[in-house]
């Protein structure tokens, strides 16, 4: 793929392009299924059984079970899709975003109230 992918070099960031999308296809389609109340119920009742209905990789399933969103993203998940898991769990988008930063919920919330993360974060 000779087209430039300069966005590969942004710190702490994964850009959801066609490559990621292909890798994460079923993971993301699973997430979308949680937009139906009936599916949320079935997922909550037995997460593993529900996940096993989808042709996802074992790694992807483990990442979902662990609610490890960074890992989910690495495996092709996109945050707008993954948000359906958070919604199913009753988490806010702030709780979800914070969970990826290594900060506690309160630390993250306070960082946001204080003006958010410095845009120079992680740059050389």
């Amino acid at each position, binding site marked *: 793929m000779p087209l430039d992918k300069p966005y590969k070099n942004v710190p702490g960031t994964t850009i959801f392009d066609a490559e990621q999308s292909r890798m994460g296809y079923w993971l993301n389609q699973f997430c979308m299924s949680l937009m139906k109340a009936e599916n949320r119920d079935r997922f909550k009742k037995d997460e593993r059984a529900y996940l096993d209905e989808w042709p996802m990789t074992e790694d992807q399933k483990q990442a979902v079970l662990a609610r490890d969103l960074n890992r989910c993203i690495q495996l092709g998940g996109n945050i707008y899709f993954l948000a359906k898991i958070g919604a199913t769990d009753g988490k806010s988008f*702030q709780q979800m975003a914070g969970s990826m930063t290594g900060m506690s919920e309160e630390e*993250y919330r306070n960082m*946001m109230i204080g003006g958010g993360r410095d845009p120079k974060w992680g740059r050389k």
Partner: protein
Amino acid sequence: MARITASVYTSHVPAIGAAMDLKKTEEPYWQRVFSGYEFSRRWLQENKPDVVFLVFNDHATAFSLEMIPTFAIGTAAHYKVADEGWGPRPVPDVEGAPDLAAHIAQSVIQQDFDLTIVNKMDVDHGLTVPLSLMCGEPKQWPFKVIPFAVNVVQYPVPSGMRCFKLGQAIRKAIESFDEDLNVQIWGTGGMSHQLQGPRAGLINREWDNRFLDRLIDEPEELAKVPHMEYVEEAGSEGIELVMWLIARGAMADVAGGAKPELKHRFYHVPASNTAVGHLILENT
């Protein structure tokens, strides 16, 4: 003749909708956000459009990975409010403007924009939160809406310049519609925010305010900013801001008319993970 009378720009943070739906708007945290829309609600009542052409992005709601349209125009008569995972927001369904939408689709495709025409779509917070912010909590929305969805989820997303030119094509289309309609165009999403990874929570107050300055004064120059600058400076989800350029491109000055009047400007950090930006520009 239909005409575009004004453009409105606003973030569409889901937590803002939740704050309204859960009656938290009087809490100090949220009061600071909503204070920026008090003027806007009065202004909208005094300047009620017949139709709002509402540019937004779908957040993995109506569009799965099966089909990802770069630009999708809603030509339906009716749109249901989506269940994004916590049940549908308790807000009215959205009435479309099928005749005008079909006319715009026809005209804009003939101007070489390769739209996808959508006749069935549930609309998510990207569309309903701006309505709530601008209209409060009416029993039904006080105007018709043409939803226009832009892919900013899977790369490559359309460039700022493509969006800006699309706005110009939309203006031509609207102004060639025979009915005497007051149309507003709204650009939504942004401002700086990142929702993913160790860098989540990024906010760039300086860059955001410069974006607002330039959107008002030199939109064509602003349209040249490449994607990478959005990602690097405004966070991975800051890319949503390209949608504001569609609305801006539809204003009269871009086609040689008078400069729009800045009626309102607001900027605040934070709402949830996001910086909130908001502008109202009126054609004079």
